[in-house]
Structures are given as C-alpha cells and as structure tokens.
C-alpha cells in the first residue's frame, strides 16, 4: 500500500495535521498522518476515543479543513478547494454512510437513493436506483418512507445512496454503531460485496473488532498518529491489538 501510482489511489492523505485552538490550549487531533487507499480496497480505521478517527474522516470528506497536509481524491489535490467545489466533491465523488443513517424522512427509499443525482442536476437513473435497492435486498420497499423501516433497512438504503454515484471512495463512519449484531453483519457484508463484486473503495471508521475483520486491512490510530497496521485481520487479532495499542505507541 506504500506509494502506489496515482491511477491506483482512490484517496490519499499526506502529512495530514489538524489542531484546534491556539497557544497553551492547542489540541492536536491529527499529528501528520500519511495514508493511501488503493482502488478496490476495504480499509478499517480503528483507535480509541480521541485518537483522531473522526477528524480524519471529516478532513478526507472536505467537511473540515486540515491545518497542514494534503488530501487527494482520485489523485487530485482537493485541499484548497472552496466550499462549492467541496460540496460538489461530496456529491459526486464521495459516498457517505453514517452511524445515524441520515436519510431524508419525507423521501421514499428510491427517492433518497436518487437524491445525489437530483442535487447534481441530473435526471436520476431509475433502473440503476432500482437495481441498487434490489442489491441491498430492498427491492420490495422502494416506495417506503424511512419512518416505516427498521434501522438495518434504513442503513441499507443509505448504502445504496452512497453507491449510486459510483464514487471514488465510500466513507463509512461507525456504520454499524446503531445496529444489533445480526443486522450489523448484513451491513458489513454489503460493504464487503461492494468492494469485492463492484470494485468500490471503502474506508470505514469503527470501534468494533468484528466490523474491522470484514476489511482487507486495519489501520490503528493513537493520539493522532498511525500506530500500526494489520492485513487480513480477524476479530480476535484486532481485539488483541486494540488491547495493546499503548505498546504500539511505545515501540515506535
């Protein structure tokens, strides 16, 4: 995963730094991290609370501006883009899956999935929307409103919405945090198959070692730094590593 060619990189950050406040009260959320996510890879970003996971995701998505360092989406440097271009970036080249689903309550499942296209001013591709909803197992619920669906069903709609624009990268922020373990496995299976079968790139921030075991690789963050990596993770190995993150920091 080190220094691939530009064409193979879906998302990359170089020397990414984010500090809050100034003077004595400065808090460093990210202390210069370098990460490169290959196209068609599934990466889990793990770490304890306050390790900088969420800040990393916000900066990668253009929701927050880094203090220093660069963010590259599909090889293109987007760090200094203004708010309008960042909005278009989120809409067209990044897919989001949130812990709280974030569906629009007054739009049906199909309308929620079609929304990014509408916001971009395109006519939504109905066949594609239907195909994606069928893919996530909701082919019979296209006209249901979010309020009449379970949490797992809502998250599946959110995944279909994230995939509909065929983005460079899908960013998932604790996507199973609000779900029971059986439902969580279905959601993780969907994210996994979007990588394996559709060639998507997924970056998922999570606390859960079981969730991380669905990824190709796990990146551990501690105190705003990359503290370690693990390829072909298993839930047990990840849990063991999480319990000894302090050792990783000391060993560096």
């Amino acid at each position, binding site marked *: 995963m080190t220094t691939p060619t530009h064409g193979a990189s879906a998302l990359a950050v170089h020397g990414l730094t984010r500090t809050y406040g100034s003077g004595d009260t400065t808090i460093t959320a990210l202390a210069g991290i370098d990460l490169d996510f290959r196209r068609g890879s599934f990466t889990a970003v793990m770490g304890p609370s306050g390790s900088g996971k969420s800040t990393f995701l916000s900066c990668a998505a253009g929701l927050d501006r880094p203090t220093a360092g660069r963010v590259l989406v599909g090889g293109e440097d987007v760090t200094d883009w203004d708010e309008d271009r960042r909005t278009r970036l989120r809409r067209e080249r990044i897919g989001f899956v*949130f812990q709280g689903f974030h569906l629009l*309550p*007054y*739009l049906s499942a199909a309308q929620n999935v079609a929304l*990014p296209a509408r*916001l*971009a001013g395109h006519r939504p591709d109905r066949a594609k929307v239907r195909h994606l909803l069928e893919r996530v197992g909701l082919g019979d619920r296209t006209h249901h*409103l979010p*309020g009449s669906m379970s949490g797992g069903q809502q998250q599946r709609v959110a995944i279909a919405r994230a995939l509909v624009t065929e983005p460079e990268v899908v960013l998932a922020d604790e996507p199973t945090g609000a779900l029971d373990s059986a439902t969580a496995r279905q959601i993780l299976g969907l994210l996994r198959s979007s990588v394996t079968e559709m060639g998507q790139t997924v970056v998922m921030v999570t606390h859960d070692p079981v969730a991380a075991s669905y990824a190709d690789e796990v990146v551990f963050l501690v105190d705003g730094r990359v503290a370690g990596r693990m390829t072909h993770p298993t839930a047990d190995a990840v849990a063991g590593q999480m319990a000894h993150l302090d050792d990783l920091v000391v060993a560096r």
Partner: protein
Amino acid sequence: MNALALRSLRHRPLAATATFLAVLLGTVLIGSFATLAESSSAARGTDADTLVILGAVVGGWGSMIVLFSVASTVGVTTHQRSGEIGLLRTVGATPRQARRLVVRETAAVTTVAAVLGALVASLTGHALFDMVRSGGLVSDATVYDAGPASVGAAALLVLLVAALATWVAARRATRGPAGVLLREAAAEQGRMRWWRVLAAVVLIGYGIAMAVITVAVTAHDDDPYAAMSTSGSSSILVGVGLAVLAPVLLRLLAAPAGLLVGRTGASGHLASYNTARRAHLLAGVLAPVLVLTSAAVGTLLLVDIDARTLPAGNPDSDTITLLNNVVVGMLSLFAAIMVVNAFVAAIAHRRDELQRLRLIGATPRQVERSVVAEAAIVAAIGVVLGTLAALTTVVPFAIARHEGAVPDGGLWLVPAVVAGVVALTLGAARTSVRAQSRARVVGR
C-alpha cells in the same frame, strides 16, 4: 421539577420566544379592546352601545384569531419536543412527570408574557380610546374608565387557552410506551383528532350559515348595517375553520400546488415532498397565512363596498370604516408576526435535517431554495383558500348592497393582499433558513 423546567427553558430560547411573543401580542390585542367594553359602563346612551360594540363585537372577532394562534404556537412548540419527552420517559420519568415539566415550563413563559401584555394593554387601550373619541365616535363627555379588571380578564383568558393547548399537546406527546416516542416521528402524517374536525365543521358551517342568512334575511332589513353584522365575521369564521384543518388541506393540496414551483429541480422536488409528507410541520405556517388572507380580503372589501354603497353623510359610516380598518390593521400585524414566528419555529426544528442535506452534497443555495419553494407552496395554498373563505363575507354583503355577487369596485384589493401575504411568507422563509444553511457543515 420546577428547577428542571427552568433549566430546560434556557436551552430552548427560540421556541420560548415564539410562545412569549404570541401570548404577549395576543394579550395586548384582546386587552386593548376589553378596556373599551369596561369603559362603557361609565358611559351613557349611544356612547355606551358604541363602546360595547367596539369592545365586545370587534374585539371578539379578533380574540378568536388570537386565541387560535396562541393555541397553535404552543401546540407546535410542544409537539417539537416529542423526542426529548421520549428521552425523559426512557430514563424513568412517568408520563405525569414529563407532562408536568412541559406544562410548567410553558406556564412560566406565558405568565410573564401575559402580565407584561396586560400592562401594555392598559396603555394601548387608553390610546385606542383616545382615537375613538378624537374620531368622534363617542362624545367628549365620555372618559376612559377601565381598571385592571378588563386587561386582567384578557390576560387570564389567553393564559387559560395557552394552558389548555399545552396540556392537550403534552398529553399527546406522553401517551404510549417510552421507546416508541424516542423514534423519529418521521412517518407521522399529522392525523386529525375528532374534536378538531368537529370544531372546523362548526366554524365553517356557522360562517356559511351567516352568509346565507345575510342574503336571505338581513339584506332586506331597513338598517343598512344589519347585513354587515351577519356577514362581517363569516370570512374570519371560515378562515379559522379551514386553518384548523391545515394539516389535512396541506397534504391534499401540496401535490397540485407543487406543480407551480416545478418538481424537476432538486429544490422543488424536495419541497413538494416535504410539504405533502410532513404536512404537520408546515401546517403551523399555513394556518396564519390562510387566516391573514381571509380576514384581510374579507374585511377590506366589506369596508370598500360599505363606503361605496351607503348614501353620503351617514355618520355611522365613518365610525364603522375606521373601526374595521383598525381591526384589519391590528390583525394583519398580528398574523404577520405569527407567520414569521411559525416559520422560525419550523426551521429551528429542522436544523439536523438541513445539515443532513448539506452533508450529502446540497449547496447552501439548494437548501435555501428548497425551503423558499416550500414557503411558496404554502403561500399559494393559503392565499387561494383564504380568498375562497373571504367570499363568504364579500358575496353576501355585495348582494345585500345591490351590487350583485361581484362587487362593483375595489377588486384590486385582492391581488394587493395576496401579493403582500406571499411576499411576507417568502421573506420569512428566506430569513429564517439563511442563518442555518450558511453555517459550516459538521460531520455525523
């Protein structure tokens, strides 16, 4: 419980402000006219009658609109807290405790507002009396003679209505198991309770009956004002009756009205579905828009027909024109504030949802445009229904004054009122959404 209520209040300044304003202005409006009625007991002859008519009859129409607005504002702000009430229930509050918290919190705000309103009303009441006397409606011998009784009664009336509305809304919010309440009330469609439908039917039926009586009976009366006394309040009655049905009307009419703003653009698309599927949220805006239109169109045309058809030199004419104009002016001001109030409350409640739109890639402009498009749909429905409601005053009165079903003049008043109401609604929407859509997007 009281301490919790006060602390919770401090976290909700916007909703509290909406309630406070509604109660304050409502008390001022009803209280001012109540002082005229109280002063009548010290007046003699026709002066006493004039003051009673002014205070009780004219003030009475106004009271209806005011009380309706206060009830709907309190209802909306309480309803918006369903989620929080569910949370209280989950951590162990009984339905009774949760209800008491909401009722006491609202009582704290409304009491302060009503007392302040009563104080202001004793000043504005005096000013209103001076205006009536300098207009020559009552003789100089008659003096302002109102104590705390009239403004106090007005304040009490507003407080009682606010308390009742809070209690009803809080009861609805605390019914059922705790877990269910916590869920986002996304699928809710604003179902109508039977007593609401009944109230609407009674109001609309009464208004139409008065219109029929005007044409059939009072039009032939020797007193030219008999027809006005029966038809004058019809537009307000029917307007308030339709406003009570606002959630249902909005849900039914949002789709056809949505065609006006166009469904093809992303903003129009979002707006037409939001107004139809979450009619209960925007119904709070539709109600004052509708009442404002019906009251203004109905009363202004009534005054216009009256001035045109009455033989010149009738001394009553000036009095009644002035009075009607005062009523239209005060009610328009009140309704305008209610429209702004309702929009600010509705948008404040939707902060999370507008953020969500920004997160998935809507530009601030798109968010703004979708909210303004919603306002356009609501305004379109409101002015059409409001104008229809106004017909129940205008048509019978025009017939009674031998102008036929369509008045001979003053029709320009209709587009003028409509333009004013639409501009007000769109302006309120734009201002209240601006602050939110321009805020920085944050994750989660």
